[in-house]
């Protein structure tokens, strides 16, 4: 156990997770400040919510229990975990679906460009 504040200790795994989250938050901020990336406000808010959530949960696990009680789930923490899994699964499915759709669009664009060039070059040869 590592003492973080007087009368407050956390395990090594918790500290590692907190440091990882902090690293990602600082890295994201660095990229934005240096104008290396320019995420939309929505994406930034999502990303920050997730990493700050991980940071807070890692350092103060009690926070999640209080949130669960506040949300009316009582002590049924497993329900929250299960619901999170379902949400993550749906999000991943949605992202894959979007990516596949974009790949199809790209293919169609490449094909149409190729066919346009082909028509110009060979269109009248067999007529």
């Amino acid at each position, binding site marked *: 156990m590592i003492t973080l504040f007087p009368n407050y200790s956390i395990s090594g795994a918790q500290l590692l997770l907190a440091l990882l989250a902090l690293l990602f938050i600082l890295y994201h901020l660095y990229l934005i400040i240096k104008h290396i990336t320019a995420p939309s406000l929505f994406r930034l808010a999502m990303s920050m919510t997730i990493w700050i959530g991980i940071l807070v949960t890692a350092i103060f696990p009690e926070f999640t229990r209080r949130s669960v009680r506040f949300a009316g789930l009582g002590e049924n923490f497993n329900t929250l975990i299960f619901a999170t899994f379902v949400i993550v699964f749906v999000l991943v499915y949605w992202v894959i679906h979007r990516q596949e759709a974009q*790949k199809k669009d*790209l293919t169609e664009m490449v*094909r149409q460009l190729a066919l346009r*060039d082909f028509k110009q070059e060979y*269109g009248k040869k067999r007529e």
Partner: protein
Amino acid sequence: MQIQKKDCCVLIPVYNEGSVLADVIRDIHEHHFSHCLVVNDGSTDNSEAKARQAGAMVITHRIRRGKGAAIRTGLEAIKLLHYKVVITMDGDGQHVASDIDMLLSSLSRGYDVVLGSRFLGKNKIPLLRRFYNWIGNRLIHLLTGISLSDSQSGFRAYSRNAFQQMETYSDAYEYDSEIVQEIKKHRLSYKEVPVKVRYTPYSLQKQQKQSLLNGVKTMMQLLFSSL
């Protein structure tokens, strides 16, 4: 139905096959098939130049979109040129142009699609490749009810009736399997004929890159598309 060679177009999708492509096209021309369409799928080597020098028509994808997308583009181009028969071959030199006559002879007997099979002839095929193909065949049989000895062969001949009806969506190697689904969907008549295959160190090296991972991807795509 009598098929004349001038009504046939050999379609070859290629990606970086510059070192062997000229020989493949020459082999086709030597067997009196003068119409050859190469779909250059975003090659970064000299495939396009080699194909043009060898006397083939060329259509080019500016970026690589996969074998399935390349064949789809090629078929669309062939429809524009009013050919009656399309023969698809791989660009790595593993197929032998002398077998085209055998495919056409079955097609002339009224079949819509003739599929070349490496496993009906006396070919020395690596064991692992046989195993992958066996899995593919079983899966295709499960999904379509069509039993083939070589569901992954790229050496095929299509009548105009077939290639005008077929509508595929796959971009990558699952295209070969999707065609079998189209045969079932449109109730096209089909036949498998034995073809020779030349596994050179070059073609084997290329196939290793597309083996297991692509097999799994193909399987997943087929399962999802049949849901």
